[in-house]
């Protein structure tokens, strides 16, 4: 789809309009962000809002710099990132594995399905005290918490994708006398790469929720700990700074998965 030079003038105009539109939207996007930050800062400076309660962009920046200087930011962000990435990878791996097992064995699936649905409906934070008692208050408990939140939804959505594999293609595999294992590796898994990746996208968000919730419950380090601690000692600057850092990290991780999705769709996308 390369540009050909012999477009009509009308089409050139149309393309120019599309481009103008795109530029306008992205200008407004960034403009909105800058405007909110500026408004916040100005209102705080003129005293219209109490920056002790609301903090303000310049104080967030100061806190950020001092946290970077004493190195504690990297420590806390590192802890949270580690917990999130580990629980994310575990949830994806275990979730896919369990979905394969349930796809493989119809009886197992029929037996477990209602239990999974109930577990999925349960607000996982309710399990917090149990997890702390069983796993101990530490990184382990936080990872288990995040896993609890994301694992079951991964299993359910991946399994759903497995069960919706094109019947015609399954028949084709039957006509080739394919074994169940061959069906899994040649058809079911490759055709579900998009499903698995969209599950990943949901998981990124859920794992952050799980990790921060876990850190609220058993806080010793991490961004969730900074937020809770800042709230308790009324240092709103610390709370806001941690939240902003959290926001940026979550967005970056999401962008990585979105990139992966783009690559996978190129190869495994629907025809």
């Amino acid at each position, binding site marked *: 789809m390369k540009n050909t030079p012999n477009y009509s003038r009308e089409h050139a105009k149309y393309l120019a309009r599309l481009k103008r539109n795109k530029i306008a939207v992205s200008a407004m996007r960034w403009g909105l962000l800058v405007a909110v930050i500026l408004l916040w800062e100005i209102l705080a400076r003129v005293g219209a809002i109490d920056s002790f309660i609301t903090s303000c962009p310049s104080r967030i920046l100061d806190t950020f710099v001092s946290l970077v200087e004493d190195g504690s930011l990297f420590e806390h962000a590192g802890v949270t990132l580690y917990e999130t990435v580990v629980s994310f990878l575990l949830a994806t791996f275990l979730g896919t594995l369990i979905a394969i097992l349930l796809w493989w064995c119809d009886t197992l699936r029929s037996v477990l399905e209602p239990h999974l649905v109930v577990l999925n409906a349960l607000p996982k934070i309710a399990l917090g005290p149990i997890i702390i008692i069983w796993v101990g208050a530490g990184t382990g408990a936080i990872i288990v918490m995040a896993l609890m939140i994301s694992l079951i939804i991964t299993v359910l959505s991946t399994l759903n994708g497995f069960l919706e594999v*094109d019947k*015609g*293609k399954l*028949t*084709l*595999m*039957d*006509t*080739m*006398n*394919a074994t169940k294992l*061959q069906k899994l590796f*040649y*058809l079911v898994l*490759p*055709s579900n*790469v998009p499903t698995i990746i969209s599950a990943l996208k949901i998981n990124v968000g859920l794992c952050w929720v799980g990790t921060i919730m876990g850190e609220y419950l058993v806080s010793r380090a991490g961004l969730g700990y900074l937020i809770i601690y800042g709230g308790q000692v009324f240092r709103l600057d610390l709370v806001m700074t941690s939240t902003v850092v959290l926001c940026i990290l979550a967005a970056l991780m999401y962008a990585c998965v979105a990139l992966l999705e783009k690559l996978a769709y190129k*190869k*495994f*996308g*629907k*025809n």
Partner: protein
Amino acid sequence: MTDSKLVGKNTEETGKAKTSLPPLAGEEAKVLVEFENVSLTYHDKNGETLAISDLDFNVKRGELLGIVGPSGCGKTTVLSIISSIIKPSSGKVTVDGASAEESRDKCGYMLQRDELFPWLTISQNVLLGAKVKKMKGRKDYAYALLDKYGLGDFKNRYPSQLSGGMRQRVALIRTLATSPELLLLDEPFGALDFQTRLRVVGDVHSIIKNEKKTAVFVTHDISEAISMCDRIIILSARPAKVKKTVDLSSVKELAPLERRESPLFQKYFEDIWKNLQNNKDGRL
């Protein structure tokens, strides 16, 4: 000990001799597929259905046999039985002198839709059957087929980059790549538009005849059956039985498009149409 071993061996041999057919000779050697009193009953929650009852027919080597019948009469089921995806409730099915189960690798199946995997290239798609059946060294043969039938330049393309007719030809080559003795074609043109269909019917017919394959072709399209086949059997409505056999040997040498122009075409068409009509109404 030696004795008991010998005895064991002997019984095994006699057992084998009983089940295997007598040495093929003359007319019998020409038969590749044989159905003898085959019946099939389906079971589901709402009860049981007799889909096929006492079905008798055969397919000769090198023959292109058509099966037509009212929709839902069990045409596809017949193919599934030949390729031993479904086992009949009673009766005997022989493929190349052995049971359908033993001969299952001798069948190549072609479905209504091409079912090419969109994430594999054309060459990977074509070799899928060989990969599943763990057959080695099929690459050269499959590539030769692609070259021969005008798809050589598309080996590294993806199915989405090909037209419907080309994709259907790729599907046929995927079926041929495992060198099956017997091709089972289950309405393989149903998903194509009419013009493409006329062309692909011609292509597939010439490929089957070129490669000297035996084929069973299931369709509900009477004119397609007449333009492709050497012989047609008409099945009755459920439970399926052979209602009539139509011999097309007088147009056998013609290509599908030429057959459509033959004066005999209309005669065959009316003959088959009448038989199908009676079927649907349940009248004589």
